[in-house]
């Protein structure tokens, strides 16, 4: 029998070049799939791919091991070309147990690569996942390229000489899967080695075990005959610059720190924990050295109340929550409208109504932000369109709130909050100067005397001698700010508050067109659907279709040129992850017979479903 050398095996393996790959890692919530996906992402970004990710968390923190509700997933799309979405259907699925296979297989593309951890396909786990027979043995997976790897036992074997307790050894198995995938897609292991050493610096034995297991996975793929081919995804042509990978919630947090710094005032964040907004609280609470004060309030009402109080006292008052929390904040938002104080309300939208789908995405709070208060109670509304865009829009929200002395909603959602992308780090010099000027001059001071251009009232903070004054939720007399119940004054003030928000248009850029300035179809979107819409329109345009897209990042007021833009196309299609809320506003304000395309599955749009819908109008 002739022995096969290592070199023989390696040389026998082929390398294939691919443009774009979508991988999904799926396992039990305790299996570390988010770490695995995160590491694959960072490494891919570092070697020059364009990337986009979509983590998918279970709602339960620790659902029973092996159960269907306990499955946690992480999808990422990496490419040698410009990409904007995490990919519709994965071409590769790594399933760490039967439950992960069961919940994720329907998404895997026909003929796709399926890597399963055979060790977990035991009677008990199969039962928990509701399999009558073992799918990896019964021939039901013949439509896929199935790779059966005993990941758990191989992990333990690799750690034979480790002193770590069994449980901790077992926990390293996600790094085995990572090693396999690193080989399969030809990625270097160094960035992860560095990360592991940083992360477990104080526990070198844990760091070593993870690294050892990752190498074992890599070598297994390299030396066994299981995999015959591995793939290369080349560098994307990315705009030159300095990049980092960033999630929407991270970009939001540092965007607000930046916004406050640019005003020259300290940031105050009042919040009550809620998914998917809590990470903003976690992140901001780490940055007290920026003078950031975070306050975990007893509820959302206290959270916004404290932020309004902080604004009154001269800080940048910020509060953050998700839809159910916004419902609780409504009355206080009205108070901020009445007292004309700068305030930003972050709403990281999630599936609703009520508790709804806490960990899933939706864009259904637009009308709540717009109208969800008693009386005519207008506020500014902005919405970031990608994870990285959160940074810029946070600064924009601070700008509008302070310049116009008004509350501004910042509508993110679960998808951009947890999704990540490479973010080109801006230069500090490119950021706007938002320095605020407090009123100090006592001569001619009236709390409700306004700036002629912005209609903003003066910000006169407690501690300023000679400007003692009282504000509150009762209607104000124009200029003096005294309590006033006169009919004409009220009529005037209601209109004035609306006009002030409308004037924010002066500081809002025109909406940009992707494609031609006129044509058959305009696809109009807002918020997190940007990537999917732009990709769909790009695909159709490549086929020569007359379709363009435009994306709203400012929803109240709308950009000045929006009316003109809408009139320049035969059909306007508005895809939204709600039942047509932007469509309703557009129809009402512009009398345009826009077509609403809605989906509320707790998931982002697939590019293919957008393409199909748009085609109906071409």
């Amino acid at each position, binding site marked *: 029998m002739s022995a096969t050398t290592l070199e023989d095996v390696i040389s026998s393996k082929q390398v294939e070049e691919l443009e774009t790959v979508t991988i999904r890692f799926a396992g039990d919530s305790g299996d570390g799939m988010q770490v695995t996906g995160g590491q694959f992402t960072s490494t891919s970004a570092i070697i020059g791919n364009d990337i986009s990710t979509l983590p998918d968390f279970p709602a339960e923190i620790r659902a029973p091991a092996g159960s269907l509700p306990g499955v946690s997933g992480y999808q990422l799309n990496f490419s040698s070309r410009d990409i904007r979405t995490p990919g519709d259907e994965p071409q590769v699925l790594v399933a760490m147990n039967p439950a992960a296979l069961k919940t994720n297989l329907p998404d895997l593309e026909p003929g796709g690569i399926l890597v399963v951890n055979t060790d977990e396909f035991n009677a008990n786990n199969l039962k928990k996942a509701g399999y009558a027979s073992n799918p990896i043995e019964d021939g039901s997976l013949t439509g896929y390229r199935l790779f059966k790897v005993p990941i758990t036992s191989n992990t333990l074997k690799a750690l034979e000489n480790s002193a770590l307790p069994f449980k901790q050894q077992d926990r390293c198995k996600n790094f085995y899967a990572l090693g396999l995938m690193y080989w399969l897609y030809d990625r270097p292991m160094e960035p992860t080695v560095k990360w592991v050493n940083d992360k477990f610096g104080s526990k070198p034995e844990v760091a070593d075990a993870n690294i050892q297991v990752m190498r074992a996975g890599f070598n297994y793929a390299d030396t066994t005959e299981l995999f015959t081919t591995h793939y290369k995804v080349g560098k994307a042509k990315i705009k030159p*610059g300095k990049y*980092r990978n960033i999630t929407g919630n991270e970009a939001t947090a540092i965007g607000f720190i930046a916004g406050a710094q640019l005003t020259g005032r300290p940031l105050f964040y009042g919040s009550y924990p809620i998914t998917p907004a809590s990470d903003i609280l976690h992140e901001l609470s780490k940055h007290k050295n920026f003078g950031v004060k975070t306050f975990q309030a007893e509820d959302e009402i206290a959270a916004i109340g404290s932020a309004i109080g902080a604004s009154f*006292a001269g800080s940048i008052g910020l509060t953050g929550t998700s839809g159910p929390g916004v419902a609780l904040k409504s009355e206080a938002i009205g108070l901020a409208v009445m007292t004309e104080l700068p305030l930003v309300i972050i709403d990281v939208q999630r599936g609703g109504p009520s508790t709804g789908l806490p960990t899933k995405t939706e864009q259904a709070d637009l009308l709540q932000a717009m109208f969800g208060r008693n009386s005519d109670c207008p506020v500014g509304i902005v919405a970031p369109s990608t994870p990285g865009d959160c940074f810029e829009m946070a600064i924009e929200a601070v700008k509008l709130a302070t310049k116009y002395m008004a509350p501004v909603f910042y509508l993110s959602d679960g998808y951009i909050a947890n999704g990540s992308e490479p973010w080109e780090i801006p230069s500090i010099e490119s950021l706007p100067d938002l320095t605020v000027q407090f009123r100090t001059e006592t001569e001619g001071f009236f709390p409700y005397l306004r700036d002629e251009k912005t209609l903003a009232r003066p910000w006169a903070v407690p501690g300023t001698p000679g400007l003692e004054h009282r504000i*509150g939720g009762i209607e104000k007399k124009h200029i003096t700010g005294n309590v006033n119940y006169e009919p004409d004054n009220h009529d005037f003030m209601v209109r004035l508050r609306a006009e002030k928000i409308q004037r924010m248009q002066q500081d809002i850029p025109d909406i940009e067109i992707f494609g031609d300035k006129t044509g058959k179809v305009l696809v109009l979107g807002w918020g997190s659907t940007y990537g999917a819409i732009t990709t769909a329109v790009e695909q159709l345009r490549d086929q020569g279709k007359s379709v363009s897209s435009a994306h709203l990042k400012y929803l109240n007021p709308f950009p000045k040129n929006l009316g003109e833009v809408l009139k320049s196309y035969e059909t306007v299609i508005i895809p939204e992850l709600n039942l047509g809320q932007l469509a309703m506003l557009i129809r009402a304000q512009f009398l345009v017979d826009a077509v609403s395309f809605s989906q509320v599955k707790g998931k982002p749009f697939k590019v293919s479903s957008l393409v199909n819908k748009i085609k109906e109008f071409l």
Partner: protein
Amino acid sequence: MLSQRFLVGECLLMTCFPKTRVYFNDEKRIMSELTNGAATPVKLTRKDFVTDQEVRWCPGCGDYSILAAVQKVMPELGIPKEKIVFISGIGCSSRFPYYMNTYGFHTIHGRAPALATGVKAANPDLQVWVITGDGDSLSIGGNHFIHALRRNINLKIVLFNNRIYGLTKGQYSPTSELGKKNKSAPMGTIDYPINPLSLAFAAEATFVGRSMDTDPKHLSTMVEKLAAHKGSGVLEVYQNCNIFNDGAFKGFNERDVRDDRMLYLEHGKPLVFGKDKSKGIRLKGVTPEVVTIGENGVTVDDLLVHDENAPEPSLSYIIGRMEYPEYPVPMGIFRSVSKPTYEDMLTNQVESAVAAKGAGSLEKLINSGETWTIN
């Protein structure tokens, strides 16, 4: 005993919060802080605190005397008026800030402690007062009331207790007596009332006091004490609503019966009351008992001695639950203790973060984590 406790407090503090400044009820020090250490405190008069707004309470309302007491005390504090903020919720009582020529914020129903927390946390230099009613603080705002107190943030909460909803014209409140007939309970209430002081003790307020509108002298003293306290403080003021709940405190607060039916607490003194100081309170197990000194061998030494600085609030809690007619109604300071305030600990965290990491650099922040450059 007292100093020993403080010492222990201080040691603990120094280990947990090495940079926290420890304050006890040292009025001079606090005042000099608030006046920015100005050698000569600002000379203000009552008039400086009066606004040009017409006071809109019903004639005869108890709120007038509370306003008068506060306006009388303010100039004596020596704090520049721009450093004072009055924050209220909604109710007749919550109109108060409009009449105080300081900074003021008339907020929304029940939420004043939340707004005030933001003001104080953002600028600890300000002296922040909360004006609230029994409905405002104990019904709709109960949650904020509890949490403001437990955080020991330096807010001076004055709770106007008229045992009724005044502004909405006479519905029962969380402090209305069981069986009380009013607009929303024509057959009498079937809600058991809450004792605001019991709640304050449970929430670990560091200052708890009680006074009433018909005793301006006592009221002014209590307002002064509350002003001087550093930490969360609540002063309950019995306030007559002569329109919807007239005589709510009748039976014990009239001038001629007051001495026999009310008990003025004095720190370090036995609980004695009565025109001729002949009666007192003795503890039987954990139940207070009214006794007559000289009868059945009872002497002053048998009486409960009031310690407002007691670290453990149980005795104050027992005293705070005494009600007429079974007991005399206690007035005064039930509790006044020191512990690190929320705002000091917050400032301390910011300062230690700066000391440890350096003042925040935006450049560093946005460039943190793994970065790479595309050429």
